[in-house]
């Protein structure tokens, strides 16, 4: 998502020019400048400082607390990050605990996001790999030095394992807790010795997740569970159309609802503040608000897509180009022309957006939430509250999902919480709750996108040219990240996965038109790859069939320069018993392979496509993420990616009618359910390469693997998502 190889670099400088209130949202003007880097692997060893004090605390009771700088929204990075540090330290897994870091970008920035503390782009393990190894190794050497000093023996004779420091020749040993207090005062070794992979005891093994117990007995605290003394609950009536503003409101009836304490206007709408969530919701129902739609987006999604279709006739901005595809296509034996469309998608995390904010006695502010973009969020709230960012203290909790939604460049819902606190006089802690309906209809969607491709092969089936145009709204343009990510009007997160295709296409052009609609858009688990992978992998499949070549073999012929992609493709095909022939009537296999965020994933889908609809029977996946830090968490993320993305393949779409979102809850936007879940087998490629992420990369290949399987089963190409079998004969 955000790749900037600038560890511990430029501090964020929030502009104090104040608020730019526009389109019903709050935008704090600051921008980030850093050099983008293509690589998804983290910083190298030499550029990382050993900072044990920032990342680990060892208590007299022997517990080892690893400080987690990232948001854990389910992807299991708490377990993964703790594994890395604990292994280098030599801790026993049973003594390991975790604690979420405060907001402090000088210590806890994500080096792949430059100066920003934040979670996204599947970077948590990648950017922390050497940082946590060095921290753990430094702490281990400090414990060893303390033991050597106490026992008056050479440090070289000391070993550490399973939470015990030993001197074998004398038989002396000590627990971490006995040494830690004194060890902490020793100098921090700047270049501690990292373990050789052969010495790892936790990395690469199955270790129990550290959150399994608290998440199975009700004790895990999410931000919606925060209960501060005297807190009151707020819900906000927001405009039914994006960009509309409050014209007037009548709160008389709302104020009469039992439990309602106050009604205040904020930039995003009208907030009803009540004793509890139920009263706040009832109060909002009784509220009358007139909206000014003069600056609102009032079109329907069909109209937006029709505009896209018109614009796609032009070449757009050139994101990448080699050779002359238009000329090449003139000499092609077969040309396939195809249009792909994608709807808006809501993240629909199980825990709706929320936060709790209060003014502290010292004049600072405490905020409790699921913080995914700490540096941006802190600066945004500080600007609203009129204090410096360090006066806004963020207390992180487990997040009930996110899929990108909690990381907004505008810090939208957190900014709203700050404005409600301010409008209500900062008297009581404000617990801001978005209902499911608020969350789903609140925008920040995966953009709607249209792709148009013309691709051709020669008489032997070889690709001769590929001319590709897409239209979609940029996530980064207009955000603080624009300077960092957008070059010549092209947002790399819009075109990633297509403009940089690894396929050896001799003549290729990728053009892009940036959408202009007034619908807020955002990254949605795997960002641009959610659509680019589908287009590339369905088109390649079409070309393979046009060339009468097995789709796996056809891909491999174009991936000679991409050995890790070829590796996962071969592994998945082998494990799935690949064949492109229909299995039985109405049943077939489909394949797709894609790199995202430096990780490589292939999937083979076994699909039945019949009158009743599409049923995915089985998914066989192969992944290459470098060193598999927690193999079981990796498997879980790929299984989960299938469950998460399947409903977007089969049915999910957010639609606008006259500017109003039509889907408000899980009845109209239904996630995958138990009875639809296919069997998922995940195979991990052994690797010594630096680890990359797996939170997102399982998502992009699912849709094309299924669509290609539907083709194998029915002979019909379904290019639009969600897949719609209703017009297909013989299905």
């Amino acid at each position, binding site marked *: 998502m955000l790749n900037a190889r600038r560890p511990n670099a430029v501090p964020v400088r929030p502009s104090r020019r104040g608020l730019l209130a526009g389109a019903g949202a709050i935008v704090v003007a600051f921008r980030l400048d850093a050099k983008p880097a293509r690589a998804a692997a983290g910083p190298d060893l030499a550029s990382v400082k050993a900072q044990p004090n920032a990342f680990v605390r060892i208590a007299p009771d022997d517990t080892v607390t690893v400080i987690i700088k990232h948001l854990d*929204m*389910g*992807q*299991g990075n708490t377990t993964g990050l703790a594994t890395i540090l604990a292994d280098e330290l030599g801790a026993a897994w049973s003594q390991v605990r975790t604690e979420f870091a405060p907001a402090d970008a000088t210590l806890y920035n994500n080096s792949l996001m430059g100066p920003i503390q934040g979670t996204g782009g599947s970077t948590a393990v990648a950017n922390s790999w050497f940082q946590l190894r060095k921290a753990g190794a430094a702490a281990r050497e400090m414990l060893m030095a303390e033991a050597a000093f106490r026992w008056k023996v050479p440090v070289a004779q000391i070993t550490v394992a399973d939470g015990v420091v030993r001197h074998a020749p004398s038989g002396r040993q000590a627990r971490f807790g006995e040494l830690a207090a004194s060890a902490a005062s020793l100098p921090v070794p700047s270049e501690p010795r990292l373990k050789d992979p052969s010495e790892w005891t936790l990395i690469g093994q199955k270790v*129990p*997740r550290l*959150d*399994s*117990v*608290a*998440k*199975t*007995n*009700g*004790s*895990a605290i*999410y931000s*919606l*569970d925060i*209960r501060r003394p005297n807190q009151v*609950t707020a819900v906000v009536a927001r405009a039914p159309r994006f960009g509309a503003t409050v014209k007037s409101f009548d709160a008389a009836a709302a104020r009469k609802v*039992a439990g309602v304490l106050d009604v205040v206007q904020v930039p995003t709408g009208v907030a009803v503040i009540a004793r*509890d*969530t*139920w009263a706040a919701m009832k109060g909002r129902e009784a509220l009358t608000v007139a909206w000014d739609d003069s600056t609102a987006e009032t079109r329907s999604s069909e109209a937006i897509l029709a505009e896209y279709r018109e614009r796609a006739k032009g070449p757009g901005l050139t994101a990448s180009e080699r050779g002359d595809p238009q000329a090449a296509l003139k000499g092609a034996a077969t040309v396939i022309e195809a249009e792909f469309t994608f709807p808006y998608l809501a993240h*629909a*995390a*199980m*825990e*709706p957006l929320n936060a709790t904010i209060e003014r502290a006695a010292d004049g600072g502010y405490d905020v409790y939430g699921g913080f995914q973009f700490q540096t941006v969020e802190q600066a945004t709230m500080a600007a609203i509250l009129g204090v410096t960012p360090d006066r806004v203290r963020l207390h992180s909790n*487990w*997040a*009930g*999902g996110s*899929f990108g939604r909690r990381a907004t460049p505008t810090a939208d819902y957190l900014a709203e919480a700050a404005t409600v606190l301010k409008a209500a006089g900062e008297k009581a802690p404000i617990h801001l709750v978005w*209902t*499911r309906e608020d969350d789903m209809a609140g925008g920040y969607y995966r953009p709607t996108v249209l792709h148009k491709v013309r691709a051709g092969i020669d008489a032997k089936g070889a690709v001769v040219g590929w001319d590709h145009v897409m239209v979609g709204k940029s996530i980064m343009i207009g955000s603080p990240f624009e300077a960092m990510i957008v070059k010549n009007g092209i947002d790399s997160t819009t075109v990633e996965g297509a403009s940089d295709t690894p396929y050896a296409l001799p003549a290729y052009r990728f053009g892009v038109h940036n959408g202009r609609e007034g619908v807020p858009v955002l990254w949605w688990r795997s960002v641009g790859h959610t659509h680019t992978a589908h287009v590339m992998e369905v088109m390649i499949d079409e070309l393979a069939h046009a060339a009468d070549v097995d789709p796996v073999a056809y891909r491999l012929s174009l991936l000679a320069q991409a050995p890790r992609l070829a590796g996962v493709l071969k592994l998945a095909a082998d494990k799935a018993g690949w064949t492109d022939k229909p299995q039985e009537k109405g049943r077939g296999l489909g394949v797709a392979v894609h790199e995202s965020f430096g990780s490589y994933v292939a999937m083979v889908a076994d699909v039945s496509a019949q009158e009743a609809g599409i049923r995915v029977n089985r998914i066989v996946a192969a992944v290459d993420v470098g060193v598999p830090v927690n193999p*079981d*968490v990796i498997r*879980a*993320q790929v*299984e*989960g*990616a*299938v*469950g*998460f993305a*399947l409903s977007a393949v089969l049915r999910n779409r957010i639609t606008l009618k006259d500017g109003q979102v039509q889907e408000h*809850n*899980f*009845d109209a936007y*239904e*996630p*995958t*359910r*138990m*009875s639809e*879940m296919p*069997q*998922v087998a995940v195979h991990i490629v052994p690797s010594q390469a630096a680890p990359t992420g797996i939170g997102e990369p399982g998502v992009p290949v699912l849709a094309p693997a299924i669509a290609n399987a539907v083709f194998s089963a029915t002979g019909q190409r379904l290019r639009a998502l969600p897949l719609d079998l209703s017009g297909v004969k013989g299905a």
Partner: protein
Amino acid sequence: MPKLTVNGVTHEVDADPDMPLLWVLRDRLDATGTKYGCGIAQCGACTVHLDGQPVRSCQTKVGDVGTARVTTIEGVSGRVAEAVQAAWRKLDVVQCGYCQSGQIMSAIGLLSGNAKPSDTDIDGAMDGNICRCGTYQRIRAAIHEAARDLA
């Protein structure tokens, strides 16, 4: 003022009888293990037991609970509950975990009435519980694991 017995403790609850049990648990009793997900009985995150039977607390008015015993994730106990929680932990089912209180309450309900559920039984009992992280494969496996443990 309705009386409510939750996890064996009787509370006098200062709430309108129309208030959903979900919000009484979360906002009056601070029993936050039971989750709000949709408010319209579509997701099952709010599942609790009334006299041992799974119900959606977002659609259960506190005034209608009467003398029924309410059990939430914080208060589950007994052989079935322990087997379910142990299986969930053994297989590391959870991801974000937000839906898992409801999943576990539904699974305990299933196994309490059906010691050896088939995959079809599991589909029937668990289809009302959404997991957006997509942990269904492990939920299914954990229910089978718990059933084996109980046999």
